[in-house]
């Protein structure tokens, strides 16, 4: 395939994400496969590249959370078609992550966006869902030997639970990286709780997620 056609297909995938058009994302993901575009290339330089543009639009306050959610849906729609076709050496599993919202919190938009980041990044994601009893994070980390535990709390009232989980996990395995997210979570809170990273809102989460996707894309190019 010539470069021009590859670029055209990648642009269509990117545009489908930016314009939150799931049908177009599916259609062009199939075109990519049919015409021999590498599936990993299509995800990273098509769909994920579109998500970077979405991040810019969010920064400029042209897009808000409803748009982000729909863009994420378009990205997943394409990725579900492409991912089974990734060559074994194209996207080695990067690691495992346990993710969920803590007990007392039933809001999971931020969590789902961060999950997307891990999915795109090639992680194996163990999604515990929402309103998750604290001990389940600990047992799931031990069961799967995941390198990362990501927890979200949208409300101040549930945030305190995260500290307990961090203490329990770090006690058993100090090398596990802990990511916290949610509206009440500030850098001070993350530091205080002994976490390794944080994002303070769904919007902030997507910005963080997009930054990580960008870094993954850069690494892949090298």
């Amino acid at each position: 395939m010539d470069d021009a056609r590859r670029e055209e297909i990648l642009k269509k995938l990117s545009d489908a994400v930016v314009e939150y058009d799931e049908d177009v994302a599916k259609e062009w993901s199939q075109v990519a496969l049919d015409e021999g575009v590498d599936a990993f290339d299509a995800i990273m330089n098509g769909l994920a590249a579109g998500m970077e543009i979405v991040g810019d639009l969010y920064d400029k306050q042209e897009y808000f959370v409803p748009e982000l959610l729909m863009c994420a849906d378009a990205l997943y729609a394409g990725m579900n078609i492409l991912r089974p076709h990734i060559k074994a050496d194209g996207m080695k599993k990067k690691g495992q992550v346990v993710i969920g919202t803590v007990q007392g919190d039933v809001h999971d938009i931020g969590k789902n966006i961060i999950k997307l980041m891990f999915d795109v990044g090639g992680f194996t994601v163990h999604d515990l869902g929402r309103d998750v009893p604290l001990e389940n994070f600990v047992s799931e980390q031990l069961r799967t030997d995941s390198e990362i535990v990501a927890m979200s709390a949208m409300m101040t009232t549930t945030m305190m639970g995260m500290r307990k989980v961090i203490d329990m996990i770090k006690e058993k395995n100090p090398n596990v990286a802990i990511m916290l997210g949610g509206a009440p979570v500030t850098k001070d809170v993350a530091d205080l709780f002994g976490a390794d990273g944080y994002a303070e809102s769904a919007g902030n989460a997507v910005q963080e997620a997009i930054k990580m996707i960008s870094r993954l894309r850069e690494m892949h190019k090298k």
Partner: protein
Amino acid sequence: MTPKERIEKLFKKEPIDTMPVFSGQGMVTIQAIKKMGIRFPQVHTSAEYLADSARITAEMFGFDAVIIPYDMCTIPEALGRGVSLYDKSEDILYPTVPYKWEKLEEVTIPDDFLKRGRMPMVDEAFRILKAKQDGKYAIGAWVLGPFTMAGQVIELDLLLKGVKKDRERVLAFLDKMTDVVIKAAQHYQALGADYVSIRDMGTGTDLLSPRMWKDLIQPNLVKIFAALKSPTVNHICGSTNLIIEMMNECGADALSVDHKNDMVESRKKVGNDVLIFGDFEAYSTLVQMETSQVEGVIKTCIDKGADAVWPGCDIWPDAKKESLEAYVATIRKYGKQPSPAVGRI
């Protein structure tokens, strides 16, 4: 001037002796709960515990108002969505809604929802507060705004995406939620609430664009405030500077914002005649900071032009006793000066 008179006059923008200490969000403290010899989950299921914990908190710390209920699930539960009370938990966990409607077409609002779930318990708590506090404190009530209430009873991403993809049905659903909010708030007013705050807190511009706010949120809030008697408060947390003028057009007696709002900018936009309440971050100020830092935070709210210093969200029940005392003392100390919209005797 009694606490109740102080708040009544504040809402009428008549001169008062000093700034009242109150809010439109939960203010119950663990100190009051411990004094009663009960556990946090118990305050949500007993009218006496609910009323007494509010009253004892006000007495302990010198607040000017009591406000109930504390959790956001009383109405969703009455709409049939259930409630998780976490009554075995040793942590402070507020109740949540376990069963959300998964599709818009499933939504049905029972005509008698005010009589379902814990709503009669809340009614009884209002009656107890009326009887026991003898007109000393103002009694506050709050109801979630339609969009935030919608997010409690239906999957939030369905709602947010539906705003774009399924507009007509989402609008019809928000109409239903608006009617629920009006009925509940009118009911609380009939039970004797001296002020009602409508908290459509999930609608700041962190989530929705100003254009979407004008289109989807404002018309319903206008309808709600037109249906309620004064005084009322329009509370939205998160980023609100881009929508503060539209908030002011909704018809409430006062606006309440949180620490993400630049109140100096808001004042410039809406003028000195509008009551603005805010805007300190309750958790960081009263739980995390050293008590010696509290005075600075509270004084800054007054200096920026708050007519009443309100926390942006519920006061975390486990706030430090000394920090709560510093919060009250600072308002008493610096609240003797007039605020932009309210003079002093």
